[in-house]
């Protein structure tokens, strides 16, 4: 059955390593007959959560920016890919800003399959810290299942992950998703 796959790309570099893994996953998912969409967070206007809880009764943020649309897509998706470069052994401010802004509707992001992608010049053990930080988010979502964590370890130059074994594995994960 065709599923909706939403890819949230948290790198500022289009064509960078985490972005190429997003593409590989999407290619596999498309071949498996799924409907895919990638959102470059960097292209959007998303303000930081103000923790004002104005959304508590309404489920709607007072900030009129691109986040309402993203949140709707997250709620509608069957599978969500969260991709980030490793910055300071954590995630990008871009992706975290989006995550924080799910507050008005995070309880409706229900029963999703999640895939994490993180890439770094560092090794897998260091990337584990980033995976940990992302999982802090999915731990708060009802029925979330983390299906796979994809480690793009040891890649420094933009785009050098192209043709690597991890790129192939990511494509396979997309195909089997």
């Amino acid at each position: 059955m065709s599923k909706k796959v939403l890819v949230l790309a948290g790198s500022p570099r289009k064509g960078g390593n985490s972005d190429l893994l997003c593409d590989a996953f999407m290619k596999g998912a498309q071949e498996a007959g799924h409907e895919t969409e990638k959102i470059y967070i960097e292209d959007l206007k998303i303000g930081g959560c103000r923790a004002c809880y104005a959304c508590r009764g309404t489920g709607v943020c007072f900030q009129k920016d691109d986040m309402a649309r993203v949140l709707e897509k997250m709620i509608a998706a069957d599978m969500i890919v969260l991709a980030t470069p490793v910055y300071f052994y954590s995630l990008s401010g871009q992706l975290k800003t989006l995550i924080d802004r799910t507050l008005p509707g995070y309880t409706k992001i229900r029963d999703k399959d999640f895939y994490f992608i993180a890439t770094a010049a560092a090794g897998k053990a260091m990337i584990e810290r980033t995976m940990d930080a992302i999982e802090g988010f999915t731990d708060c979502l009802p029925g979330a299942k983390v299906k796979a964590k994809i480690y793009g370890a040891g890649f420094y130059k933009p785009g050098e992950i192209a043709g690597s074994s991890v790129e192939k594995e990511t494509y396979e994960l997309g195909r089997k998703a």
Partner: protein
Amino acid sequence: MKKILFLTTSPTVDGNGDALTSAAMKEAQSAGGQVDLVNIREKNIGFCKACYGCRETGVCIQQDDFQAILSLAHEADAIVCTAPIYYNCMAAQMLTVINRLCCTFACKTHKLGPKKKAAFMLTCTGSEVDEMIRHVKNITTLPSIARTIAGEKTEVFTSCVSSDTCAQSERYLARAREIGRWAAE
């Protein structure tokens, strides 16, 4: 006299972060410290673009408020950060500032100033204390940051269910004062 930079990343005016910062700052002042306060919510700080434009000069290509904060951080003997925890991780506002420290590893000639104490005061409702301390350590053990850290303390303030939880808790304010005193020593 020790120079202490207080960096608050909570979006809430007079909320938990502000109560803790204010208590720690007063204590640091009375212990003889010279304090600076930066409220990130009043600043314009862009996301790191990972362009490595800072590689040669140590200066970011983005003309925003970050460079002035970095100068204060360089001069400081201690930096005390306050951040709320959202989804078991420091708020995006804090991570965005940390991401912008790219120059500390990209630029080999970058000067970091005196070795510094670093303190984090994190506010949350129900996150695990040990896990949050580990998250901070994950970041501060990055070699480019670790080389300038002389000492580190992280305090996690749990059960902050309302914006005045910390202001109402003498126990929490005492812990914040302890951080302020430590920073000024």
